[in-house]
């Protein structure tokens, strides 16, 4: 099979490009340590979230020094808790599920983004820095009121977080 020398060169460059793309993503995983939403959490009965110890009470709780866990329920058409209050300069693991249809969970302008699927639990860990406020939107169509489904993530100072009782309802 006759292939022109230039086309062979382009074929080689293309393969280099493909390997470089896979390489970049791999670097992101092992260097900065970007991890994917995966199957780390067990399934949950979406119709009986109030019987699940993770989601019976949507909340943010402290689990270690500078380590927090958030349990968030997406529903038609909002998020609980609202707002989600987390402390600054800490590691926060978000657990997100849905009690009805498939929703999205996107912290606007950041790299935090995941699906909220009924029956499944998305687990993502992020590191907060200075106090700030982020918008939260559902980015998957979830019904006729989809466009009103929004929330807030408020990153507050450690002291303010504790003065609120270390918890958000």
């Amino acid at each position, binding site marked *: 099979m006759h292939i*022109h020398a230039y086309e062979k060169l382009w074929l080689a460059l293309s393969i280099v490009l493909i390997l470089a793309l896979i390489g970049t993503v791999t670097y992101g995983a092992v260097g900065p340590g970007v991890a994917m939403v995966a199957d780390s959490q067990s*399934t949950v009965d979406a119709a009986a979230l109030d019987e699940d110890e993770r989601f019976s009470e949507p909340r943010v709780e402290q689990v270690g020094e500078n380590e927090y866990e958030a349990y968030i329920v997406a529903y038609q058409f909002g998020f609980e808790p609202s707002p989600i209050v987390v402390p600054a300069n800490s590691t926060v693991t978000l657990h997100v599920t849905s009690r009805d249809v498939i929703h999205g969970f996107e912290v606007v302008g950041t790299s935090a983004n995941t699906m909220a699927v*009924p029956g499944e639990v998305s687990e993502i860990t992020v590191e907060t820095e200075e106090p700030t406020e982020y918008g939260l939107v559902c980015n998957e*169509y979830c019904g006729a009121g989809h466009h009103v489904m929004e929330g807030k993530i408020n990153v507050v100072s450690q002291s303010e977080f504790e003065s609120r009782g270390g918890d958000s309802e």
Partner: protein
Amino acid sequence: MSTAIESEQTFVDKFPDEARVVRAAFLSSFFALLLGAIFGIIQTLHRTDVARIIPSTDYYTVLTAHGVFMVISFTIFFLVGLFTWALTRSLDRPLLNIKITWTWYGLMATGMTLTGISILAGFVDSIDMSADVLYTFYAPLQAHPLFYAGLTVFIVGTWIAGADWFRTFLAWRREHPDERIPLQTFMVLTTMTMWYIASSAVAASVLLFLLPWSLGFIDQVNPTLTRTLFWFFGHPVVYFWLMPAYMLWYTVLPKIAGGRLFSDPLARVVFVLFVLLSTPVGIHHQYLDPGIAEGFKFISMTNTMFLLLPSLLTAFTVVASVEYGARQRGGTGLLGWLTNLPWRKPEFTGMMLAGLMFAAGGFSGMVNAGMNINYLIHNTLWVPGHFHLTVGTAVALTMMAGTYWIWPQISNKPIYSSQIGLFQVVLWFIGMALMSNAMHAQGLLGVPRRTAEPEYSGFDYPTMFGGFEELNIQIAIGGTLLFVSTILFLGNLVLTMGNPKVSGLAEPLPSPVSGAEDAPQVLDNLRLWVGIALTLVVLAYALPIAAIINRGGLLGPGVGTYPVWLAPLFDALADAAAPLFGAVADLSASVVEVVR
């Protein structure tokens, strides 16, 4: 097909029955394009808050209609028309039984009509029917049963179309036992092979889960399972849209440019790579889904990245073929030959601009394919920005440009106005450049896709790339230009249909610079490629699907049912409507029976 005969005879002269099918398929395609464009402009102006003529709750009916009419009806009706032309032309023999051909056309048209009715009924409050589930119909959002039933009938139609072409090919093979498969026929057969593999999953999802569920036979489904089966189909379907464009770029564009295809063997390699790699990649649409292990996502990414290869090879081969044409026309210099091309022909300029936009879409596609960078753009407006470059321009603009070339071949009527045609394709390019670029930029701001009102009360978007408002204006202007361009295309075609028939329009296609005799025989061994493709699919999907079923069960971990056809009433009326649900379900079941 001898030169002497074809140079005198157009396709419609030689194959009048097949030409009638091709015209019917194209007209169905363009009718869908018209509907899709109307919903497109309503949606663009609504989203950008320039003009809101519908309530925001109806936006999702508009969005479902735009998506389904554009990417199911417009693209696939064009495909079956083009493939009927290409197979008949390149085998130089009629289809085996034109009644079978009309049967599959009828099934496709019936199926799409049923699905269309179920979608459009969403606008009429007095009819308890709706399918506002968007093109992806993710459970547990539930459409009216007619939506799923119509899609099923449509897909069965495409399966019979494929069988029609395969049977005709086998008849040709008996008559020509020692010849290479003609390139266009090779493209038809490989594309349909991919389609059979891909559509099997969505058929399984609809027939085993979604349709019985919408009819009330089963109470619930596993949302991750039906979503995974959708994307098993949902990624290869983008190549199903794209392959007609590739066929035109490989076999018609070089002719229009005044040259010949640079390499037949590489064209075959490219189509084989699509058969192998199009399907075991769908999980890259689910990078941010819970319940699927990271390893499966990584495998899907690797396959996806290698799927860039056939498109990168295509870029070279097609541009080289065009360069060859330019140099035949006296072009010189490193890039000076670009001026020796027929830029005044809409069929040429349209396809070239479509290819240029596909190159840009290649970049945003790489980003979409990158596993962890998906956090940045997943479900933002970046994604529709991307696929308006690919299916929305590489495919749609090539189909429109191709129509300017092919319509005279299948009707003996010259195009009404090449000037309008040229203006129209350039207008499409400008409109899409504005709209798509601004959509990508808004995506990076975090603006979500698929929403009626992307402005929120609790926060403002960052002010990069000109800011949210300015980008909205670009989207609205771009979308308006696209709408005008579509109307000009359709108007030009309608006026063309009013032209008298003339003779002497025949345009034979030249053979490649490097011909089929240069291609290894193994490339034509379809059984081998099907075997490898199925193996790759099993490797990519067996374990993830087993894990999903193992985690959530075949029918899902305690998930409810959310029929959108009751959406305006929300859950308050859900109980009261249950008997009605049953009655409508019975009615639909009988409709399904009748259709079958």
